[in-house]
């Protein structure tokens, strides 16, 4: 495991860059735990200061230090992405493995639900949900909703792998040896699909963070939980761009772009590593 990671870092530039960016962002998020200021307090520092010492990223029009505000914002945003990704992974694994292995009416039922979720337009639904829920639209509620909406593509992917696993001899032998459906899925098929799931998890994080930022910028989320999108929302509310407070918008945007690029590079390079054909061609073994 660690040997593989070391090799990847050494030989794969994309992986190294992606890992570096992601690690940097996580470090920033970790700094929130030593922040001298509580995230929701306003007018604790002089407002509208440009970047400089001691406020390295400047201060906002609401009297908050952009840097420390950013540590909280990125922490919540990452946590949001992770929560959505993990929850939706559970759903897509259960649905994909079960549908692929069982086939028949189980498959048809699960896949018709699955396809419904694939064709549902997400943004209008989420906006609508905000107008229905209003103040009850908390961080956790949004994460649950996104997880419920974001599993369908990967469930199809997992199902296609599970369908091929179903006809392998080791599955037949498992059935012959008396293993039940749950045991076969958990012990034989789950380890097989985990690498694929790992790579799609990163993509799913990107997707959910992107959507959360979009909603937050528009003000359709719980604006009292600091997040990247929330920061941009407040900056827009105070017409930061017009007032020349560019650092209030530039730093959150730069940081969240680092998240996107970092996770994307990780997903791409891991994907390439997981697929033996592209791994071999990279190693120069096969043409």
């Amino acid at each position, binding site marked *: 495991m660690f040997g593989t990671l070391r090799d990847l870092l050494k030989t794969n530039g994309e992986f190294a860059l992606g890992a570096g960016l992601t690690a940097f962002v996580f470090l920033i998020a970790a700094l929130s735990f030593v922040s001298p200021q509580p995230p929701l307090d306003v007018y604790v520092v002089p407002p509208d200061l440009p970047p400089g010492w001691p406020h390295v990223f400047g201060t906002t029009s609401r009297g908050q230090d952009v840097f420390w505000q950013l540590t909280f914002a990125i922490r919540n945003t990452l946590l949001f992405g992770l929560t959505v990704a993990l929850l939706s992974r559970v759903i897509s694994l259960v649905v994909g493995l079960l549908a692929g292995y069982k086939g028949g009416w189980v498959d048809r039922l699960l896949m018709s639900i699955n396809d419904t979720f694939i064709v549902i337009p997400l943004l209008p639904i989420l906006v609508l949900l905000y107008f229905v829920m209003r103040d009850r639209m908390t961080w956790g509620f949004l994460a649950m909703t996104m997880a419920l909406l974001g599993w369908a593509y990967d469930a199809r992917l997992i199902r296609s792998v599970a369908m091929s696993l179903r006809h*392998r001899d080791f599955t037949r032998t498992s059935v*012959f040896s008396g293993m039940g459906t749950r045991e076969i899925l958990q012990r034989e098929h789950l380890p097989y699909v985990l690498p694929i799931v790992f790579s799609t998890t990163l993509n799913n994080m990107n997707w959910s963070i992107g959507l959360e930022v979009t909603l937050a910028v528009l003000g359709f989320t719980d604006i009292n939980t600091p997040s990247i999108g929330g920061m941009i929302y407040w900056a827009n509310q105070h017409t930061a761009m017009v007032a020349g407070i560019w650092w209030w918008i530039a730093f959150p945007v730069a940081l969240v772009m680092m998240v996107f690029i970092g996770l994307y590079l990780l997903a791409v390079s891991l994907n390439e590593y997981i697929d033996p054909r592209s791994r071999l061609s990279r190693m120069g073994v096969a043409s």
Partner: protein
Amino acid sequence: MLSVQGLKAYYMTRHFGVQREVRAVDGIDFEVLRNEIYGLAGESSCGKTTLIKTIAAAWKPPLQIVAGSVGFTFAPDILRLAPAELARVRWKHLAYIVQGSMSVLNPVRRIRESFVDFAFRHLGVARAEFDRRVSAHLARVKLDPGIVNAYPHQLSGGMRQRVTIALATICRPEFVIADEPTTALDVLVQKDVLDMIREVQREIGSSVLLVTHDLGVHAHVADRMGIMYAGRLVEEAPTRELFRAPRHPYTAHLIASLPRIGDRTTRKPLEGSPPNLAAPPPGCRFHPRCPLAMDRCRAEVPPLQTIGAQHRVACFAVNA
């Protein structure tokens, strides 16, 4: 040990209202005795795999059992066992090495985990004792017990085959069904694996039903042999006798087609191809290709008749 009586298993398919019936196994009777290796031979698509799937009670639609019974000493009527009982019998009493058994091992599970997954529940011993038995059993098939920590891709084809055989025999089953256990192995490894099957079989005193189209393999290990043609058993005899004096014209052709060292004559191919089992010819299914075919062969099905000690043939030309 095993007694199959009047077994008929057809593939029943229905597409767009058209019923199709493929008679893959059509009336088979035979017995396998305790402590013997019974070889089942026949060309591709003659129903070998269907037959053993049925014997292992591992059939599923569209395959259907139409008639007949399969009985083991430990399960007098295995085709009618409840799933829970079936699970108890399998592996412990009845092991099945499936075709292409190289892929029986899950590529992402260590060998140890495969043993635990497949066999642990059937042995009913503590985990430490189970690990000890796995090591001992791997040593018996001449493998380093250290390979339990390896993944299948780290082993060679021959080693994987041995692991598979070790997996199938760890519970010391009374009956082992092996479907093409040596296909895709080179001749040397084949011999090794066959000797090992023989050795393990002798040691635990089990019976083996060995299925392959490779007559050389049968000649090497089988005690008795049955020849299948188009879903029916056409001849059955002790291996030595079958090779020395085949009686059924199909068997005779099969044996005559084997290459022999020093024999330079060209082999004569048999005219025609095996019949379509969805619409088999009436009477003896071999008659369209048989040089000895008579009018009677076209109308009646020849019964499998005993013609000598342990020697049975289904042919009017021989039995008349």
